[in-house]
C-alpha cells in the first residue's frame, strides 16, 4: 500500500486526501456565494474558466466554521462529474501511505467517523484518510 496522499490540515487535525483524486491544489481568492445553499458550500470559484463548488471541509465534517486566518488553500477534486474545491486549513506536501486504511477501536470521533475511510500510517505519523465522496455529499446527506 504505497498510495500517494495529499497531506492537509482540517479542523486542526492531520488528514489526507488520496492524491490520485486531486487534480490540483489552488489558492482561492474570490468566492461567489450561493444564497440558499447548505452552509458547508461556501460558494463558487473559478479555476481556468471552470466553475468549482467550494466546500468548507471543516463544516462538511460537522464542525464549526473556519477561522479567517487560514491560507484558503483548496484541493480540486471531481466527484460525479462535478468539480469541487475542498477548502482546507493547510495543504502540505504529497506523502506516501505506509499502510492500508484501518479502523481504530472506538472510532475517530464525531464528525470524522462519517467522512473518514480509516487511519493510514504516513511518514508524519497516523493520518485520517478522507472519503471525498462522503465529504462532498455534506453532513445532511451522510446522516440520512
Amino acid at each position, binding site marked *: 500500500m504505497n498510495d500517494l496522499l495529499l497531506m492537509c490540515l482540517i479542523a486542526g487535525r492531520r488528514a489526507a486526501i488520496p492524491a490520485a483524486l486531486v487534480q490540483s491544489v489552488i489558492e482561492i481568492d474570490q468566492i461567489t456565494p*450561493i*444564497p*440558499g445553499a447548505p452552509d458547508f*458550500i461556501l460558494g463558487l470559484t*473559478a479555476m481556468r*474558466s*471552470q466553475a468549482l463548488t467550494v466546500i468548507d471541509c471543516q463544516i462538511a465534517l460537522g464542525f464549526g466554521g473556519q477561522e479567517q486566518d487560514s491560507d484558503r488553500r483548496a484541493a480540486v477534486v471531481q466527484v460525479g462529474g462535478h468539480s469541487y474545491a475542498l477548502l482546507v486549513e493547510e495543504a502540505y506536501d504529497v506523502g506516501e501511505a505506509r499502510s492500508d486504511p484501518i479502523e481504530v477501536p472506538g472510532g475517530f470521533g464525531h464528525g470524522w467517523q462519517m467522512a473518514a475511510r480509516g487511519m493510514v500510517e504516513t511518514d508524519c505519523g497516523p493520518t485520517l484518510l478522507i472519503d471525498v465522496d462522503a465529504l462532498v*455529499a455534506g453532513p445532511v446527506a451522510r446522516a440520512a
Partner: protein
Amino acid sequence: MDDLLADFVAETREMLEASGGEIVAWEADPSDRARLDTIFRFVHTVKGNCGFFDFPHLEKLSHAAEDALADCRAGRREADSTLVSAVLAIIDRISEMIDSIEAGEDHPEGGDDALIAALNPHDDTPGMSPAEPHKPSETTQVTATSPAEGKADAGPKPARAASVQRTIRLPTELLDEVMKGVSDMVLARNDLARRLRDAGDHPEIDGPFDRLSTILAEVRSSITRMRMQRLEHLFSSLPRLVRDLSTELGKQVMVDFEGGEVELDREMIEMVRDPLTHIIRNAIDHGLEGPGERIKSGKHEIGLLKFAARQSGNQITLAISDDGRGIDADRLAAKAVAAGIYSQAEIDEMSERRKHHLIFEPGLSTAEKVSSVSGRGVGMDVVRANIEHVGGSIDVTTKPGEGTSFHLKLPLTLSIIAALTVGSGGQRYAIPRSYVEEIVFGSSDHVDFAEAGDRRLVTFRGKRVPCLALGEILGSEDPGSVDWASMTLVLVRMASNDVFALAVDRVYDHEDVVVKPIAPAIMETGLYAGTTLLDDGRPMMLLDLPSIAQKHRLVDEMRSMARTLPEEEQTEQRKARPVMLFTGLDGRRRAVRLELVRRIDTISREAIDIEGSRKQAVIDGAIFSLLGLEYGELPEGRCRLLRLSDGEHEVVYAVSEVLDAADMDGEIVPSSADPAVEGVTLIGGEPVPVIDGHGLFAAQGTARKTGRTASCHLPASSDWARTILEPLVEAAGYRVSTEPEEETDVAIELVDDDPRPAFPARHIIRLRPEPEPAENDDESIYRYDREALLSALKRARVEKTA
C-alpha cells in the same frame, strides 16, 4: 439539394461502401448467413428510407430484393447463385439511381421489372435471364444493357459530383465534445480578455487578440450550426406515426407540414420528440372526430393535423393544430372538480382560457375512456414538464367544434441560452431570457405596490401580480427591509402563463451564457438551474424560475389572484368578489371590494386639509377627496389611506389599519341603517360591513380623473373661450386640444364666429351670444347658460364611453 435527401444519399452510399466487401464475399459463398444478413439490412434500410421520398422505382426494387432475401433468411428459399446475381444487379441499380438522385436528375427508368423478375426462382422470361451461374460480370451487364443505359452516364459523373454538397456523418459524441471545447474556449478567451484589460494597453497583443476573438466567434457560430438540424428530420417520422394511429382508431387523418426548413438543436429535436408524439396521440384520439361524426358536423371527412414551425429570434415556435372537436372547457372543469383538483367555486372564477389550461393539470384526462392509444398514465402535465425542462413553454388554444392548437416555444439550443443578468445583494444572477416579459422600474408612475397580508402585490398595466424580491427568495434579504420603489422589477411569465414580478437591485445586461451543471447539493436548493462564468471570470448562478415559482406557490397564489388580473376578465372577476379587510378610524372591521383598491398609501397628517365639509388629501402632488372620516378622528402623525378608484375617479379612504385580503363567498345582506355601507357579509364566520363603493363615488362627482379623458376643441381666436370657457370645460373633465388636426370628442364653436374653423370632432356644441335663440336655431346654447353647457358636455362624454 434538400438536406434530408442529401442524408439519404450519403447514408445509402455509406452502406454501399461498407457492404461492398460483404457483397463480394456473398457472391463467393451464397450460403454465408452473416453476409446474407448484411445485404438484407441494406436493402431493408433503403426500402424504409424510400418511404420518405417519392422514389417509386427505388422502393420497388429494394422491396423486391428484400422479399427475396427475407425468404432466404426464413429458410423458404435457398440462396443460390442465381439469386445472388439478381440481388447484386439490383444493388448496382440502386447505386446508379442514388447517383442520379444526388445529381438531381431523373434516374433511368425501365428495366426494373426485368431485374425484379430475375429474383423469381421460377422465372423463365426470355431475354432478361437470371444471370448465368457464377458469372457476376454477366450481372453487371444486365444493368449495363438495360434500356436506360445507366453506364452511358458514367462519363460526366465525376464533374457532376463536384457540384453536389459533400456530406459526411459523424458520431454525436464527437460533436458534443467539439461544442464543449468551443464553449470552454470562449470562456478562456473571456478570461484572457479580462487579464489583458487589467494589464493595460498592449497594442502588439491587442491586435492578434481581436483577431482571435473574431475567429472564435465565427467558429462558435459554425459549431452551433453543426448542431442544428432541420425540423424536417422530426417531421419525416410523423406521417408514419399518424398513419398508424389513425388506422388503429379508425380515423382518417391528413398531415400538413410547414416550416420544415427551420433549424433546431439536434438534441432539442430529440427532447421534443416524445412530447410531440403525445400531443399527436391526443389530437388523433380525442381531438379528431370519426369520419361519420365529421360529415355530420359539416366538416371534411378527413381530419387535418397541421404542424407549423417558425423561428423568431432565439426561439422556435411550433404549432400543432387539428380541426377536430376542440376542448370542452366545461367538461374539463367538471373533471377537475371530480378529481378534487379545484373546487367548483374556483372553477366558476376561471376564465375560459384558464379552464383550457386545466389540460396541463396532473391527473386530468380528457379521455372518456382509456384507449390503447392514450391514457397510458402520461398526461399533458408531463408534456409540459418536459418542454419546460428544456427551457420552453407550451400553450393551448381551442374553439369548440373547430379544433385545438398547441403552441410550443422552444429555445434554439440547450447549452447556450440567452440570459438576462440581474443583481441582488451584490451578486449577479442570470435569468433565462425566455421567461422575461418586461422590465420596469419600481419608481415608475404606472407601477403601484400594494400589500395583501404578507403577500406583496404590484399593479402593472391593470394587472395585479405577486411580487417577490430576489433577495427574499434567496434568503439573503429580509422582505421587510426591501425598499420597493428603488427596485427594478423583472416581470416573469411562466410557461403556464402565470406572471409574477421579481424585484432585483438592478438589471445588468443581456448575455448569451454557456450553462454548466451544478453540484447536486446546490441543485437541492431548488433555486438554481446551473452555473455560468461571467466575462470577468467570476462564476454566476442561473436561477431556476419554474422551481422558484413552485416553491413560493406563486402558480397557486396566482390562481386566486387571477380574478384581479386582466380587465377583459372583469365579468368572471365579479363573481369572485375578493375584498380587502381593514379597520376603520373607529377601530371596527370593514371590507372594501378589492377591485376598488388601487393602492395603499401612508401620508403625514400635514398633507391632509380639512375645512368644513371639504376634506382633502395631497398625495404625490395630486389632490384627492378624503373619506372615512365619519367614523373617527385621524391619528396624529402618519395616516393610512386606501386609494380607491372606480376606473375614472379616485378618492382616498382613511383607515387605521389594513388587515388582509379575503374572499367574499357568501351573500351580502343589504343594510339600510348606514348609507355608506352596501351590506354585511360573513367572512371567516364573522359579520363584516362592506362599504358601498357605488355610493362612495356617486357622492363624489368629479373628484379626479384617471384614464383617458375626453378631448375638446375651443374656438381658437376667442379670448373669452380661453379665459372663461377653458376652465369650465376642463373642470367638466375634458382635455383642451390645441392641435387643429386632432379629431376630438367635442368641439365648441361660437355661432357668431364666421367663417367657422372646421375642427374635426365627434360632437359639436355651438354657443350663441344671445340669451334667446335665433330663428331656426334650436341647438345652440347661450354661452352663460352654465347648466346647459355642462349637461351638453356630459352628454357627449357619456356617448363617447358608451
